[in-house]
């Protein structure tokens, strides 16, 4: 029995990017020998330059991208072994996308209900009740019967969080949940995440929201060029990171937010 909700062991992932011309194929090493352990109730935050592979790593954790090498564990179950029912495993992992990706043909309620009805196979009433609870938890009850196109970005992302939350996953992975939103809308999403943090939800978040990180994260992970460069509590990063690269990055990002 492991103590970890989720664990990545020496994960590698490369992918090809096609350039303008056919011969231009660039191989991107997005994840190079990354290991990470997450305990129940942990809130960890991954940050680092764009294009460094943070999102790819997060998608590997959810097995939305299959790692080339290495192992992903969900509790005791190794997800990277052949023959594992990945759909069942993914049902236990909540995922929130940067660009939200709500199901456009369904209302907020329909978006949240779908997994409850079709994956967990709950009876209609119970699914509805739990979906409404989840929507209330992220404070978007006014959107219950709205379609994604009728919501603001902040409302849509909170519905996205409710969709991930409603089936009580073991962990929620959030891929830059606020970076596609207008600055004035990030606040409401951050508030929602803060509430989840208070309730002890296990979360792995890719984000550059530094004040939020300082407040809720137990551990921050500086990620660059496909590797974890430095891990430590927020105080480490805000005072004196050990590595030069983390130092540079923190200086830049703090200047940007105070300007």
């Amino acid at each position, binding site marked *: 029995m492991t103590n970890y909700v989720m664990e990545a062991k020496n994960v590698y992932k490369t992918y090809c990017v096609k350039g303008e011309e056919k011969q231009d194929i660039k191989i991107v090493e997005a994840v190079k020998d990354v290991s990470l352990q997450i305990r129940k109730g942990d809130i960890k935050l991954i940050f680092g330059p764009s294009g460094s592979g943070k999102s790819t790593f997060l998608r590997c954790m959810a097995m939305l991208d299959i790692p080339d090498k290495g192992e992903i564990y969900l509790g005791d179950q190794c997800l990277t072994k052949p023959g594992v029912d990945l759909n*069942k495993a993914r*049902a236990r992992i909540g995922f929130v*996308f940067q660009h939200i990706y709500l*199901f*456009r043909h369904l209302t907020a309620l329909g978006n949240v209900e779908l997994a409850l009805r*079709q994956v967990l196979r709950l009876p209609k009433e119970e699914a509805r009740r739990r979906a409404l609870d989840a929507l209330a938890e992220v404070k978007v009850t006014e959107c219950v019967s709205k379609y*994604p*196109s009728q919501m603001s970005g902040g409302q849509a992302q909170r519905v996205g969080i409710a969709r991930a939350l409603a089936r009580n996953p073991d962990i929620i992975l959030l891929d830059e949940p606020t970076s596609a939103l207008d600055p004035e809308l990030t606040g409401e999403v951050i508030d929602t995440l803060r509430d989840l943090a208070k309730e002890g939800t296990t979360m792995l978040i890719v984000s550059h929201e530094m004040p939020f990180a300082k407040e809720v994260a137990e551990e921050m992970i500086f990620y660059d060029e496909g590797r974890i460069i430095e891990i430590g509590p927020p105080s480490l990063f805000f005072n004196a990171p050990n590595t030069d690269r983390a130092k540079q990055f923190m200086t830049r990002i703090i200047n940007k937010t105070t300007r």
Partner: protein
Amino acid sequence: MVLAVEQQLIFILEGVPYTLSISLISFLVGIVIGLPLAFIRSYEKDISFVVDWYEKIFRGVPEIVLLLLFFFGLGAFFPFPFYNAFFVSCLVLGLRSGANQSQIFRGAIHGVGDEQMIAGQSIGLSKWRGVWHIMIPQVFTFSTPGLGSEYALLIKDSAYVYVIGLLEIMTRANQVRINTTDMVAPFIFAAIVYIILTFPIAFWLDRWGNRRKKKIGL
């Protein structure tokens, strides 16, 4: 046998139920064939060559050839069910429409986008349940007005079945021509009936599609 003008028109109009039922049934057959083909083409690259060949054959061979081949050719060996003009008409037009619709749906799948499928996977849906619950409802919206013109095409193509003697609008108009030696009026009348049949359905499908697109924000 020379009938009064009124009776001749009624005789032609009695072909409308045949024309409508052939085009409706073959449209549905086309959906049943085209939708899976489009998803195989998009998500099962290993066997998508089957779809390629299917489309090549049924888009490349004229309907008249297929109608005669199925009706007389297959009908000679398997009188049941092939020596039945109605069955063969629906089958041939449906097979051809399936090839067309496969391409319409493929464009729509591309339009809906992979992200919707990935979001479906992220909540624990399997690939094919994602297709059912997430893709198909959106694919139909994206497929208009393509589906509208496909239906109009089927109404028009149903005229080909006069070669196997099914009594739809075209066959009847031709018979009136033979009986009355009027070379013009029966065909002009048939043409008007075809326009009346094609226009509203394509128009309605188009409008339905636009409303749905608005609703889901496209």
